[in-house]
């Protein structure tokens, strides 16, 4: 797909070739996840140019243009050009039919979304509108199309922080998008230490929380997870070094024993888009191995 999209941009390839390359890459990605024995399957957002682009197409006064660094990575996104969302919008965050069940769908958290937007004047109002009018319909569409797990990406909170005054609007935004949605919803906070925010995160109306264990102490997780699921980012999505099996299994087992969350999900600490395909595939295979072995040791 890299070669095909590059060729298309430069007028050296046709749309058909890009579609064929996409189908081929998606099939390969699904195959890797299946071979690894993962419990949920994703389309890998292979056709998304950044986390916001398909969601904001057609919204706002003009298409997103300004390129902004995505936190401390060498990947850039085009900042959404919107300060308001006037009407509900039925964006189809539909899992690709080719993706087998059970499916996971990834969407941006409303806090990150509202902070990434360009020139927004009242970001908390925008956050509420995004939650109600864009993300909630997107989640419902996804669930109707068979998504069982919704993965909300929330790096802004853990990387840049959040003001005290913004917690209440954030909680309200999350509540308005999640109530009545028939799927497990995980808010995944990464690119930073989740420990200082855990107490308030636990009060959010989501099924579970995701933490980045590269940045967060496992000791900070403590107890109190009887009603919440925990997703641990236990493979580093920004490092090409593949984590050793035994130590990672031991990490998962230790957390299962000591934290005792309602459900424990294993994942990478962040998106795998910062890794070349070959390395990302190795990480997925390792994730499958870790999960397989951990399930033998931990009652599930």
């Amino acid at each position, binding site marked *: 797909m890299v070669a095909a999209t*590059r060729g298309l941009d430069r007028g050296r390839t046709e749309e058909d070739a890009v579609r064929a390359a996409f189908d081929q890459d998606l099939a390969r990605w699904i195959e890797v996840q299946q071979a690894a024995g993962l419990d949920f399957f994703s389309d890998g957002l292979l056709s998304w140019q950044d986390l916001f682009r398909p969601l904001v197409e057609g919204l706002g006064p003009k298409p997103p243009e300004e390129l902004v660094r995505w936190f401390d990575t*060498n990947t850039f*996104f085009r900042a959404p050009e919107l300060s308001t969302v006037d009407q509900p919008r039925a964006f189809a965050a539909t899992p690709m039919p080719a993706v087998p069940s059970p499916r996971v769908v990834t969407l941006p958290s409303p806090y990150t979304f509202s902070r990434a937007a360009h020139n927004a004047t009242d970001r908390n109002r925008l956050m509420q509108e995004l939650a109600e009018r864009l993300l909630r319909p997107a989640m419902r569409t996804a669930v109707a199309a068979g998504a069982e797990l919704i993965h909300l990406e929330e790096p802004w909170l853990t990387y840049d922080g959040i003001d005290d005054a913004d917690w209440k609007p954030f909680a309200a935004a999350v509540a308005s998008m999640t109530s009545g949605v028939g799927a497990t919803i995980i808010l995944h906070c990464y690119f930073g230490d989740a420990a200082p925010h855990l107490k308030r995160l636990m009060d959010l109306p989501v099924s579970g929380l995701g933490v980045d264990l590269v940045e967060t102490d496992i000791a900070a997780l403590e107890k109190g997870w009887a009603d919440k699921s925990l997703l641990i980012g236990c493979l580093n999505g920004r490092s090409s070094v593949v984590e*050793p099996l035994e*130590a990672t299994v031991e990490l998962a087992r230790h957390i299962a024993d000591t934290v005792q969350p309602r459900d424990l999900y294993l994942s990478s600490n962040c998106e795998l888009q910062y890794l070349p395909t070959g390395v990302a595939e190795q990480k997925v295979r390792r994730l499958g191995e870790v999960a397989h072995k951990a399930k033998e040791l931990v009652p599930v």
Partner: protein
Amino acid sequence: MSAVLDHKPLLTHEIGSLDKPAWRVKAYAGQPLADREFDEASTWGQRLQVPEYQRLVELLHHAPFDKEKRSEIQRWSSLYALRLEESAGLDVVYDGEQQRTEMYDWAVSHTNGFERRGSVRAFDNKYYSKAAVVGPISLRAPFHNAEFSYLVSVADAELKVPVTGAYTIADWSFDERYDTATDLRGPAADRRRERKAARRDFVLEVARNMIRPNLMALIELGARWIQVDEPGASTEPDELDLFVDSFNASVEGLNAMFSTHLCFSDYNLFFPAIERMTHCRQFAVGFANYDSRELGTSDAARPGYQVIKKFRDLPDQPALGLGVLDIHSDFIESPELVRDRILYAVKVFGDPLRIHVTPDCGLRTRSWQVAYEKLRNMTAGVELARKDLGLTQPR
């Protein structure tokens, strides 16, 4: 630089890369060329008045190309790019990095200690290759000498050599040598401390063992202006001192004019760290991407340029390479828009000698047609600004 250019207000130059023509890409990759590629070589040869360009067109008709022929085609590509920049009216030029694979890949593939890992998305559908450092770093051979020697022999304008900087090389690499800890069971604070120390060792080894010897080789060949490209410099806000240390370790004591290129960042982060870059005589910085497209020279009209006041106040008073072209868009900035961006900067700096005029970054993601139109409007905008400021051309 020459004495004339040293004192030329609103000096113009490109930043680095240009797209590679399809005839160069396909010929090099051993793919058959279509009529449109022959036409492209012919049309641009004519338009840019490339001497004897018909020889290239003739050569392209004689596939397959052996190694020598492929090198010859690369040199033609360099010559075309050089003429494009000269024809657009730039004061200082290079070859759009036509002989390099890409700014990062070219450097690491000529250096011991790295292994390729694959491509990663930068933005939209643009990807870059990533390698991992796996062993001790050393220069296999100076990797810009051949292109520089060739360009010296054919350039009419002054040359500025773009060289990828140490911090960016390290930042864009995976680290499989210094920072290999994977056990997440210990305290996160310990991991952060170890990661920081490992990163410092990595960056400074790149500066000392890869960049510096390469710069020395270029200076030996006669390079007078070397631009150290650091698009990754502000990636980690808490590593700006390390970026500065790596720049200083790369250039300290070497006899040339050094500048650096920074782009697509919150530039406020660079202060005060870059005050210690005493050997950096120019900072070439992208601003147009953040600016309005409306005309005007007030603060309100130029939102993308508010941070330039900080560059003005740097203690060693370096020049500012003012990015006036958005390289991520096909929008062609009008000469009047370029003029107003320049006039605003001159008003802030109070000295047109400290303002150089450039695109935001390399133009490699734009077609040659778009790049050429943008550059021509840039030099036209400079002329308008000169007129407004009552500046005469130095002889």
